[in-house]
């Protein structure tokens, strides 16, 4: 059940230029959150910014959760000033988690840039609950934007790197790397990153005939399925509505449910 908790900051540090990791103490969130869900952070007290900022759980520990984020605009810039020992109001957990499907043999993550954020928690859950170690394709514009490589190695994941400029790993799109991994029946792809990348991955999976789960982003106001602001167009109707809510029906969707034509 979503709730609002005031959490103490246990750690907050810049992990690569413009990217921060925030660890907050919250047995409640840690106890309830599942990989793929997200929360809404109150950036600072007062009415600016007006809305909370959606962030997924990078990792879910015993009594704390971590968030990995990128400075995108004013909200995240203000957020980065928060210091250890201060408190922050967090609403969550929200949304639908990644599915944990026992019948799947091979799990491949396709992560673009900061889109890697929801994957460490998912890798841990798969290892713990399914006894399966996923493979990870980490893609980014350039080397310094490749995040969490070390974490995945520590969990025993095979990591494939791809950069737009070739500064690390292959100079290729993540979807190309994916195709070259020859994923066959029994494989499921989990993808999070820029819309164009998710679209390309969806198209690749369609061609390969394998299921693809995508974690979408949209501007959010409520995070609770109420305001109808975060919708994307779907290929089907949920509750007689052609639009699906990223916050409530997602953020994780089977890629075939999304109408990718708009992107």
């Amino acid at each position: 059940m979503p709730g609002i908790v005031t959490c103490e900051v246990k750690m907050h540090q810049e992990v690569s230029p413009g990217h921060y990791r925030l660890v907050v103490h919250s047995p409640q969130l840690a106890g309830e959150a599942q990989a793929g869900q997200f929360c809404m952070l109150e950036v600072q007290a007062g009415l600016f910014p007006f809305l909370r900022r959606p962030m997924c759980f990078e990792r879910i520990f015993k009594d704390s959760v971590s968030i990995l984020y990128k400075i995108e605009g004013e909200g995240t810039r203000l957020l980065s000033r928060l210091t250890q020992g201060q408190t922050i109001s967090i609403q969550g957990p929200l949304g639908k988690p990644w599915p944990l499907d026992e019948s799947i043999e091979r799990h491949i993550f396709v992560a673009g840039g900061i889109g890697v954020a929801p994957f460490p928690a998912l890798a841990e859950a798969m290892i713990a609950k399914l006894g399966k170690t996923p493979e990870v394709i980490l893609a980014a514009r350039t080397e310094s934007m490749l995040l969490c490589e070390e974490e995945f190695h520590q969990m025993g994941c095979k990591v494939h790197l791809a950069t737009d400029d070739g500064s690390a790993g292959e100079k290729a799109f993540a979807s190309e790397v994916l195709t070259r991994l020859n994923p066959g029946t029994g494989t499921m792809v989990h993808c999070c990153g820029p819309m164009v990348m998710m679209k390309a991955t969806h198209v690749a999976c369609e061609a390969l005939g394998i299921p693809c789960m995508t974690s979408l982003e949209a501007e959010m106001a409520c995070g609770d399925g109420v305001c109808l602001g975060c919708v994307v167009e779907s290929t089907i109707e949920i509750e007689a509505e052609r639009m699906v809510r990223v916050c409530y029906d997602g953020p994780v969707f089977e890629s075939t449910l999304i109408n990718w034509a708009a992107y």
Partner: protein
Amino acid sequence: MGTSVDLSINLGGLKMKNPVTVGSGTFAYGQEYNSYFDVSRLGAVTTKSLSLQPRAGNNPPRLVETPAGMLNAIGLQNVGIDVYLKEKAPWLREHGCTIIGNIYGASPEEYAELAQRLEAEGAADAIEANLSCPNVHNAKTARGCTLVAQDPELVKAYTEAIRAATKLPLFIKLSPNVIDIAEPALAAEAAGADAISAINTITSMGINPETRKPILSNIVGGLSGPAIRPVAVKLVWDLSKVLKIPVLGMGGITNASDAMQFILAGATGVAIGSYTFRHPTAAMEVIDGLEDYCQRHDVAKITDLVGAMEV
């Protein structure tokens, strides 16, 4: 807390145990926020605008944050009256909620039908007609007007049609985009409205300088939130000076102190809108805060404070 305070109000025939409801479209049909607080504690739940058919709304992007507020162009996406009657209203009833059914139609006849069906099925305790949605483009609208609520003649015609269709308390929801809000309000009153809801969002827009494109796919949207509160308080005061029927005030309320501004300006009831997105328990805290305010100020009945601003 000490002595008990009477927070109950009668809003144009609708009995509410306290003056606090929610803004239409900021609370869906009540269910979601029940995980944050017992929604039956509200004086009433106001539903998202309901239309005869389900509506998909506008294309995304549909919302953007603004300084101390937000801009939306949802476009009245809703499940439609049928799904509401079948799935949403029963839940609200089971949970003991008083319901203000907000409706939106493309013509007076559609509004009338919606009101009539809500009453017939016992799925609302009052009707709030949204005549101020930026999507109604009616050929009969007076020069320059884009909303029914901007044209007193249309307000009269729509109100009369709905009035004829229902005996439920009827609230007419007005727009701040007018020169003198007294005109449509008096037209509604004359046509049989039981209360005026004010205000809906202010027509606005935003542009992304990097892409040079409008931020909302609909280009234009409605501004809400604390940013517009001073505008709303002024309009509620304008209304309270001319109307005999009560006012349901809204626009940027975040806490009991904000709510008191509306009540002192002349609102009998208040609605919490966008701020619920930031702080889901806001409406609850307003109820508690109003009780606390009355105790601190030795006021036995909240209704004694309606319009009690000292000029």
